[in-house]
């Protein structure tokens, strides 16, 4: 009996891109989300044996995490930034972390994706590849809404580019119903850095509260270039600006509750930064 349905397996990136361009396939990396909302009539393109998607490498500016790298593999790598490890170690449970991948977390298009939150806070980029070429874009611009991304139907996510940075302060917190196997109700990642006594970066990203991960660069700009003293004086109006901007969608828990948690986490982050 010959199998005529269900999928294709690729053993190189070139093969995967040929199949992606010529067939109607759903890219399958870890399967943990795909197999829950199963697409019965679709063919899968199995990517877990594509070596180009399985590597974690680094260059001068970035740590590059392949799209089919699992969360467990990232936790075992000395290259992956600590903030990312903190977020990834809180995903589900070991059996899911042994399967779930960075590419899958992105392509699933959920604002609750814990690795995506850290990518947005870190100004990470994505390398998207197709038979006709490749492009690099900000993770922030890739996520368009629930289940919607900028990925074209002939493209695959090749890797996540995490900027190499050693900030003064990193902050991550996930609020869920329990510690394991919990989908985030609110998640927060913050990165703070100074240069010559002035704030050079104060990124704050909020997950699971809207259609995409939220980040407000115009509010961050209030504190960029300020001294710590100046920033302390501005703290109240800075938090108030977030309070005004955080208009949250209703979810399983009330918008009011999640807004309060967002502001509490923001305040905890600012305190940890010494502001």
């Amino acid at each position: 009996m010959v199998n005529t349905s269900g999928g294709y397996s690729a053993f190189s990136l070139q093969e995967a891109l040929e199949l992606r361009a010529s067939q109607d396939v759903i890219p399958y990396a870890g399967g943990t989300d795909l197999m829950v909302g199963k697409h019965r009539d679709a063919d899968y393109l199995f990517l877990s044996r594509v070596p180009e998607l399985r590597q974690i490498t680094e260059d001068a500016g970035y740590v590059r995490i392949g799209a089919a790298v699992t969360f467990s593999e990232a936790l075992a790598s000395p290259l992956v930034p600590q903030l990312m490890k903190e977020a990834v170690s809180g995903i589900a449970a070991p059996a899911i972390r042994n399967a779930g991948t960075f590419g899958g977390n992105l392509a699933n298009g959920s604002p609750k994706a814990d690795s995506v939150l850290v990518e947005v806070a870190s100004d990470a980029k994505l390398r998207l590849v197709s038979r006709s070429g490749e492009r690099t874009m900000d993770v922030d611009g890739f996520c368009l809404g629930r289940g919607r991304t900028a990925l074209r139907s002939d493209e695959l996510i090749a890797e996540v580019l995490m900027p190499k940075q050693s900030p003064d302060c990193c902050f991550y917190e996930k609020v869920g119903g329990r510690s394991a196997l919990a989908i985030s109700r609110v998640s927060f990642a913050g990165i703070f850095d100074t240069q010559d006594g002035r704030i050079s970066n104060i990124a704050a990203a909020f997950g699971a509260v809207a259609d995409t991960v939220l980040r407000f660069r115009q509010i961050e700009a209030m504190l960029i270039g300020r001294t710590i003293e100046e920033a302390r004086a501005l703290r109240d109006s800075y938090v108030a600006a977030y309070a005004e901007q955080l208009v949250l969608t209703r979810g399983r828990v009330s918008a009011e509750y999640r807004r309060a948690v967002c502001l509490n986490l923001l305040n905890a982050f600012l305190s940890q930064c010494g502001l």
Partner: protein
Amino acid sequence: MDRLQEIRFVLNGKEASYTGSAADRLLDVLREQFRCTGVKCGCREGECGACAVLIDGLLRNSCCVAMGAVEGTSIVTIEGYRETARFAVLDRAFAQLSAVQCGFCTPGMILAAEALLSAHPHPTEEEIREGLSGNLCRCTGYNAIVNAVKSAAEEGEGLW
């Protein structure tokens, strides 16, 4: 880059193949075609761990694995694991410490314990709880299971 014709893998040490759809769930195939009914179906969405198996030594929920993804791998279910000396130690510890009540979660718990002890032969209580965190039990309240894994680690000194 061929369309998958036949999916070949090793199941509990023996060559196996599957000619159905590559999109079929490993959980269903293990139970229905290979009669490995120790692999339990609890939630079908990766939340309960009752269907856990080892794929190339790593703990995975078989409900969240499509058959196309198991090509070339080696799968161990409780039916294969029960033949090992390590299982005998876990079996004794679970029985002695009353870590089994209805038994539905037990195959997954045992394989999660195996995955944990392979990585941490002398686990702390926290490591045991983390290792079993994806496996739900509605009977025992977990403490008995945690104690059983701790006891197995001590009794089975040198096996892991």
